């Protein structure tokens, strides 16, 4: 009886271990396959050159440029709002008040809304409502903002990444010791002064983690920008906020599914995927390291 139990137990533990190993193995296989397929084409020129021959040759510079611009505008929009919301939730709101709970619920909902819905919202709200409205009021009906462009795509992406920022900053603010706050207040500083001088500087690493995670999320998402601003091919780089832009993820999607000759450009596709994967991978790794350091400090 006891022996049988031990065997069952061994099998069960083995099964759980196998599941964990399976996940890790798939991660490694994915990384290895993508890097293996892309490393042949990957070079400095590949990163800095324009595409040629209808994407069959050349580099992906415009896609990288567009992605960087996208995440930059997105961070400018998302990080301040996310950080302020986190400050409210930790410093001003009472823990179990209805307001705080509904904001938390909204943030979590926002995190689970499918990314394609953000795309629809960007189209319906930013482009059709705000953009067309701006055109009507300022330009007398001339079409400028009422069409897909990088500004609306960035804003759409900012909504998607807002919860990421809020959650990271909140965690960091909670890690700021209570004693520091109390000391500041006891010295006569007001609440806002304490937040400005003590809480926010103390949670700088959390704000950084939040930004990194948001950037990595924003760089990889494609669904929200499918119809809010991404373009398949542009001969010039975007110069104004009302221009369309190229994007790494969108580039991969179009090349892999709609290119005239998928096989011929396969190596470019793998290399582009490798660039995107390594970019998000590095960013996430940095965030994981910073956060684990933060947690250790909080303990």
């Amino acid at each position, binding site marked *: 009886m006891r022996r049988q*139990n031990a065997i069952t137990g061994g099998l069960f*533990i083995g099964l*759980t*271990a*196998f*599941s*964990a190993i*399976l*996940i890790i193995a798939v991660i490694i296989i*994915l990384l290895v396959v993508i890097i293996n*397929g892309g490393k042949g084409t990957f070079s400095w020129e590949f990163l800095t050159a324009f595409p040629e021959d209808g994407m069959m040759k050349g580099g992906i510079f415009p896609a990288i440029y567009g992605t960087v611009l996208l995440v930059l505008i997105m961070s400018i929009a998302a990080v301040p*709002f996310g950080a*302020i*919301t986190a400050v*409210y939730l930790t410093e*001003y709101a009472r823990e179990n008040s209805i307001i705080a709970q509904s*904001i938390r*619920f*909204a943030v*979590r909902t*926002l995190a*689970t*809304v*499918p*990314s*394609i*819905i*953000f795309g*629809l*919202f960007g189209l319906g*709200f930013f482009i*059709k*409502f705000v953009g067309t409205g701006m055109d009507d009021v300022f330009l007398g009906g001339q079409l400028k903002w009422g069409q897909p462009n990088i500004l609306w795509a960035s804003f759409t992406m900012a909504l998607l990444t*807002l919860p990421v920022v*809020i959650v990271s900053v909140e965690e960091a603010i909670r890690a700021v010791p209570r004693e520091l706050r109390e000391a500041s207040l006891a010295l006569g500083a007001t*609440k*806002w002064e304490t937040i400005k001088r003590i809480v926010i500087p103390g949670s700088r690493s959390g704000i950084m983690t939040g930004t990194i995670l948001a950037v990595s999320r924003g*760089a*990889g998402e494609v*669904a929200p920008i*499918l*119809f809010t601003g991404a*373009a398949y*091919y542009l001969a*010039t780089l975007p110069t104004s906020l009302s221009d*369309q832009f190229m994007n790494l*993820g*969108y580039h*991969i*999607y179009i090349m*892999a*599914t*709609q290119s005239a000759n998928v096989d011929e450009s396969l190596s470019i*596709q793998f290399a582009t995927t490798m660039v995107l*994967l390594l970019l*998000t*991978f590095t960013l*996430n*790794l940095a965030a*994981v390291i910073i956060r684990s350091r933060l947690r250790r400090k909080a303990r």
Partner: protein
Amino acid sequence: MKEPIEKTGFVFSRESLKKRFRLSEFLAEKIITGVAFLSITIIVLIFFFVFKESLPIFASTKKDAAKIENVQQQEQYGGDTNVATNALGQEQYGLEPSGPVNASGQEQYGVIEADSLMMDHQVMVEDNRDHGSEKATVKSLLGKKWLPVSDNPRYGLIPLFVGTLKITLIAMLFAAPIAILAALFSAAFAPYWLREIIKPAIELLAGFPSVVIGFFALMVMASFFQDIFGYDGRLNAFVGGVAMALAAIPIIFTITEDALTAVPRTYTEASLALGASRWQTALFVTLPAATPGIFAAILLGIGRVFGETMIALMATGNAALTSVNPFESVRTLAATIGAEMAEVVFGDTHYNVLFLIGSLLFIFTFSLNALAEFYVKGKLVKRFQGKQS
């Protein structure tokens, strides 16, 4: 009088202890509070604007219902020719370019052979638009055919629902057991150093862009599974489902792991003290105690798969078929929006139907999230406070 004496004499009067009004404090608090409401506002706006664009469908239903019925009756005759072009029409969908027409004016068509066909369809649709025959009614939304770009457009959502459910089921069959068992391993059996590897690794998997997973599924997994099972269509629900499992595993793992580690130590200690072994404690004490959390994890995983767009677009083949065979191509709700939205005419019925699909997706994931949240909160708290058997 009394007043001047009180003001100068008593430092600790009720008046003087009151907080002094400072404009900067007041403004800071109000602005911060205002910004905090942004997330709620966004949710409301999303619901409002996505739903608003789908409203014309319901508005036109009442007015034109009778008329459309007639038109559709008449066009039943044309139905046969439609069926004939169906196969072509559907295949063409998967390959169809969804990229917006570029600013530079360069037009990209993926597949040349499908090109002329497309043009024919477009022309016919243009013709028909005048007759108003392509109005979607609530009844036609329940139809079994999704043919938005044909001479007699039909917006039957059934195949899309079936496709989405099928792929969700396949994904969860893979993701749920693997993720839960791995979480149990990490929470109950793994030594500390191993846990410190597994958890960050799965966090990194969560950070993989879905387009990368989609690409991997399209280029590598599809061929791999085809070699194993030997089916015909390279891209199908099975490949898509397994790829989506990769996207759902991190979510299920993380939440399950949290739920498992939140089970009070006293539970496991009591079990061990009674002579149960480690695996018995994990399987019969820890796991049942964390059921609400695991349930929530599965719900959120379903929500993720349900709304996943890029993997569905790239790995499922995108033909709107209504079948239960897992090795046949499917078209999901989210992928339909992603593939077709860039090409529709604004304000068109097709446009409105796509927004309606968006509203349905939003309502569904919203309810899943709400259910997960409240169920877990209620149950877990009660259970760990010992109010429930």
